[in-house]
């Protein structure tokens, strides 16, 4: 979330002063993203330096100072709204890393590791659902913020479910096979037994 563009969006509704921008930002993001007032003023200074906003009274400082959007600021805002996020590789995912590590650590019960993460994620989903449930029906902003978090968490739960299913159907001899392609190794022998219809 870019504070810079959020402020441009709020100013597109008309001139506003700093404290008001901070209050409206928090209200419109369902108050789940607190913003400190220093962050607002620093960002406004940069926007003014770049010619994207102007202050009505250059003499006044602090809370009295009102800002409005320039034409360049409006162009920047509309350009940003249509620009997709970067398609660079996702940052390293802690959950994926933990599960991958759990695969290699002897004596770890993988279903228990997966379940601990699943429980935690679903508990978080419950909290966002409760937020949505208790919210005023007209508070679309809050519902959208809650939905976004719920979908993001749900994607992780679905990945855990898929991991669970994949690990359940993992070939028994996988560790040996992963250790190196030995034609006559345990994995090869297991395959041979299955091919010959021998029950273990």
């Amino acid at each position: 979330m870019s504070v810079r563009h959020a402020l441009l969006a709020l100013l597109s509704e008309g001139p506003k002063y700093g404290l008001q921008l901070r209050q409206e930002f928090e209200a419109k993001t369902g108050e789940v993203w607190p913003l400190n007032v220093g962050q607002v003023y620093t960002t406004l200074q940069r926007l003014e330096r770049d010619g994207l906003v102007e202050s009505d009274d250059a003499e006044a400082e602090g809370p009295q100072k009102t800002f409005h959007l320039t034409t360049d600021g409006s162009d920047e805002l509309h350009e940003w709204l249509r620009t997709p996020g970067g398609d660079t590789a996702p940052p390293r995912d802690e959950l994926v890393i933990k599960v991958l590590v759990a695969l290699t650590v002897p004596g770890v019960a993988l279903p228990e590791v997966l379940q601990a993460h699943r429980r935690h994620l679903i508990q978080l989903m419950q909290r966002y659902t409760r937020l949505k449930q208790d919210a005023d029906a007209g508070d679309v902003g809050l519902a959208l913020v809650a939905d976004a978090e719920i979908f993001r968490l749900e994607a992780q739960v679905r990945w855990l479910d898929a991991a669970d299913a994949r690990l359940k159907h993992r070939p028994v001899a996988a560790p040996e096979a992963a250790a190196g392609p030995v034609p006559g190794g345990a994995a090869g022998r297991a395959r041979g037994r299955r091919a010959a219809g021998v029950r273990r």
Partner: protein
Amino acid sequence: MTPVLELRGVTKVYGTGAGEVRALGGVDLTVGSGELVAIMGPSGSGKSTLLTIAGTLEQPTAGRVLVAGVDVTALSRNEQAAVRRRSIGYVFQDFNLLAGLTAAENVALPLELDGVAARRARATALEALGRFDLAGQADRYPEDLSGGERQRVAIARAVAGDRRLLLADEPTGALDSVNGEAVMRLLRDSCRRGVAGVVVTHDAQLASWADRIVFIRDGSIVDETAPVPGPESLLNSGSPQ
């Protein structure tokens, strides 16, 4: 919180000998009045079996099921049917409304089968439909209703009268997300009015509407969530960059 549903050591085994399948192994679960509990697990984990046994639609191989304090596993088939009509409401993924009956008739039917006079059953049905914003749809047939409306009629049928226990199997599976959310909101609100609810699902979003989520795996309960803290706990958990 008064317990409405109690499962004690419920075990269900299908088949015998080499073909024996243990669907549930010694499940203990208590659901209180006003509480919505979600049972979550992968397919084949035993969650639907648990629901049919809780609803007296199937008899456990071992263990006991108590509904509002009554051991229903000790009752005759006819007595169990009476408990089902009076105390238990069911909501299914495919709604299970009777096509030849209007919305109001569908809701009134279980009450009439239980001996409630037709006029009174209709009045109770209209009251339940009104609660779910369906007063205008009372005399429509299921085929003239949208999917979301059909499921709301099914929930009205499940809670009409003096039902104590509401059992739902993937109730939003056939609905889009907006209608699915509306259905979960109604289930949640019905529970707040004192009904005990159990929803079986593999869907985490659906489960997140529950007060408590119980995880089932290979026929056993393996885990459950902690009580939900207030939404203020989410504040200050992240800040914009």
